[in-house]
């Protein structure tokens, strides 16, 4: 394994800085809810379909409550009011609540109010128990069939049509893929609703819908049984619907989700408050459902320079870890992201990349870690590109990455051909097989380039964390400290979907998630 580089006290210091950085943000999170969180609560109660014009029922109802100025009591409360008014099904609840002037409903007597909450809590408990049963079924299949040793080889499908995605995913699984990611349609992250049903038209990817999740997971279950090894599925809990996607994914037994505390702010210009609040709730769902999150620090070094900005990755990983732990996630669920992106024209890049990946492993010894391939400096010479990817395969196995997204030799040209995935999987299998255990055979010299670089990057990461703690995370983002992207607290998309909770706010799902 890579050297210690830094002592345990320094790691504790980094974690303390991260904790003091996320603390004030967690306070903001506790006081607020969002339209996406409230829609998630309604989905738990089975309000999951779409209305006549394709508008999801959860949106229909939450928008109505928001417009009436009563959403800050919690959608669950109003769902309870609908039940109390005699609604016999989730559909009837929607009908009742959208047909009366909610703001004019009289207050209930205290004992009626208490009973309403108890009834809704009972229903939430039953729904969460159902969710747990589904998650257990996934876990049982996973342990029955087993998974190979990490790094788990992760490949992407992106046809736009869920049925074509299934064909490509099965082919990839047969070629040796351990994790299938279905790329989302371009800009789905900016939709403030989750589309409904199976979809066959997408741009640059396939819409994330609960039905598409179900179709893909069922196909992979059957293929896993055939192959005698469990093939994992991942999607994207990011953008304006982090919380809802997490719930849909949990229900349909997905294994992983891309989920980052700051990615939406930086790279999708989604409002800061909205993202922080949503990421907390979505991670609570992931914690309950045993979903591994994949964070997006690799993106920082596709915009900023990978050599100059290496420390921002480390600092952000500590922050992401702190937010994740506050939401109840365990170490094994932390696929903290980083990547092989230093300009290959520089000398000694293998040493630099090893240094960075070893440092990440040193800082997060028990995390899953998600390693990303080169993209920014990829060339259209596919033979060079293939050799370049293979170096990332070597670093991944050397530093015991949990998850490795495989580079494609046609990166920078087109969406991968079926054969591109096959070639990448074959090469990665070879490298992982050939070099497994190499970390135990070689010690990194303490006075060498790898160690010196790791110590220098860690020092800078500490300085950045100190700045974040001193001036606040929001100010640091405002200065463009992460990914060279500057964002302001009250700018960006989705701020109008953020609400301060009323003193009698009611969210039995959150209660159960936090008690988990």
């Amino acid at each position, binding site marked *: 394994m890579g050297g210690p580089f830094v002592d345990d006290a320094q790691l504790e210091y980094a974690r303390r800085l991260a904790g003091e950085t996320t603390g004030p943000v967690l306070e903001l999170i506790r006081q607020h809810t969002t339209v996406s969180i409230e829609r998630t609560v309604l989905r738990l109660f089975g309000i999951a379909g779409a209305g006549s014009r394709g508008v999801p029922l959860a949106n229909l109802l939450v928008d109505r409550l928001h417009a009436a100025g009563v959403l800050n009591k919690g959608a669950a409360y109003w769902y309870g009011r609908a039940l109390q008014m005699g609604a016999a099904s989730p559909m009837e609840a929607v009908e009742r609540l959208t047909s009366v002037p909610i703001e004019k409903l009289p207050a209930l007597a205290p004992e009626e109010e208490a009973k309403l909450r108890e009834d809704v809590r009972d229903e939430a408990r039953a729904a969460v128990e159902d969710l747990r049963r589904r998650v257990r079924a996934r876990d049982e299949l996973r342990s029955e069939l087993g998974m190979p040793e990490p790094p788990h080889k992760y490949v992407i499908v*992106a046809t*736009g049509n869920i049925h074509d995605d299934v064909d490509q995913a*099965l*082919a*990839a699984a*047969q*070629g040796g893929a351990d994790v299938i990611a279905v790329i989302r349609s*371009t*800009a789905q*992250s*900016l939709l403030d609703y989750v589309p409904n049903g199976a979809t066959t038209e*997408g*741009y*640059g*990817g396939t819409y994330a819908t609960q039905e598409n999740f179900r179709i893909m997971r069922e196909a992979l279950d059957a293929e896993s049984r055939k192959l005698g090894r469990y093939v994992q599925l991942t999607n994207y809990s990011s953008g304006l619907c982090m919380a809802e996607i997490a719930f849909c994914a949990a229900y349909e037994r997905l294994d992983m989700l891309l989920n980052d505390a700051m990615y939406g702010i930086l*790279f*999708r*210009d989604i409002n800061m408050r909205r993202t922080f609040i949503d990421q907390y709730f979505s991670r609570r769902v992931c914690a309950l459902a045993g979903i591994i999150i994949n964070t997006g620090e690799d993106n920082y070094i*596709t*915009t900023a*320079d990978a050599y100059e900005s290496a420390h921002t990755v480390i600092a952000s990983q500590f922050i992401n870890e702190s937010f994740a732990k506050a939401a109840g996630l365990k170490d094994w669920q932390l696929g903290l992201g980083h990547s092989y992106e230093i*300009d290959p*024209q520089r000398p000694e890049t293998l040493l630099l990349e090893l240094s960075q990946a070893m440092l990440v492993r040193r800082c997060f010894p028990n995390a899953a870690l998600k390693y990303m391939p080169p*993209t*920014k*400096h990829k*060339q*259209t010479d596919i033979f060079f590109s293939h050799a370049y990817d293979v170096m990332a395969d070597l670093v991944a196995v050397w530093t015991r990455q949990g998850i490795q997204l495989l580079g494609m030799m046609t990166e*920078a*040209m*087109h*969406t991968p*051909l*079926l*054969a591109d*995935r*096959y*070639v990448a999987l*074959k090469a990665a299998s070879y490298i992982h097989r050939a070099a497994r255990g190499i970390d135990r055979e070689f010690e990194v010299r303490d006075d060498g380039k790898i160690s010196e670089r790791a110590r220098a990057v860690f020092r800078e990461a500490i300085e950045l964390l100190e700045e974040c703690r001193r001036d606040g995370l929001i100010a640091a983002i405002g200065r463009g400290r992460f990914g060279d992207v500057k964002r302001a607290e009250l700018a960006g998309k989705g701020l109008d979907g953020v609400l301060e909770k009323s003193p009698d706010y009611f969210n039995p799902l959150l209660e159960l998630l936090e008690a988990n």
Partner: protein
Amino acid sequence: MPGTARQIIRPYGDRRDDGVVQLSFTFPVPLTEKAKEAAAQFVRRMGFSDVRIAAAEPAADNYTFFIIYARSGMYIDYSEIQVSELVARKLDFDELNRLVEEKFGRRVIVFGACTGTDTHTVGIDAILNMKGYAGDYGLERYPWFEVSNLGSQVPNAELIRRAMQKGADAILVSQVVTQRDVHKENTRQFIEAAKEAGIYGRTLLLLGGPRVDHRLALELGFDAGFGPGTKPSEVANFIVHSLLKKSGQEPKELHYQGEPQ
């Protein structure tokens, strides 16, 4: 050049004129002897001879991946190939800055963005950001260029409006996502918007992306297109030469090394 002596060339494998070509493709059938024969016949039908299947691999249960070497009897008379004559040498970073200072005496104003729904800023960042690409500085680094990179998912009209406010000399549109030709649709809209705004034919309009080439860009109504592997200095050279031509300070027929073709 026409009229000169014929110069016959063929692909060079390891002997002059052996005509050796590498091919690779996938058939949607399981790997069997029949699949291999089908692949060989397919390659022969394309006009190749001496077909050697180097690899036939089961990429999946129902897909076979082939790597094939074969010879082609085709040849090309190199003397008949016509492309625009190279006249000027490509200028480097300092030469280009000096030229702008000398000829214009003001900074060249460039705006760029990924427009429409495209969220992939890798291409536009490589061209515009300080850092640049493959050791070639981005346009922001040129002291005689003033660059605004608006990022991703910028509406076409917004890019045009902001560029007009600053009196931009050139607008760069980057399109990475090309699924179902979404890039063509969006860029057509951009050109329509540029016409409505009255900057079409006045401001240089440049298109870039992994599936873009110069010809496609011209068809869509742009002044130039830049495909994969384009270096920022190539874009900078194009902008400066085009502006010099527009202002009559350089002959229209002038061509230079690295010009998009």
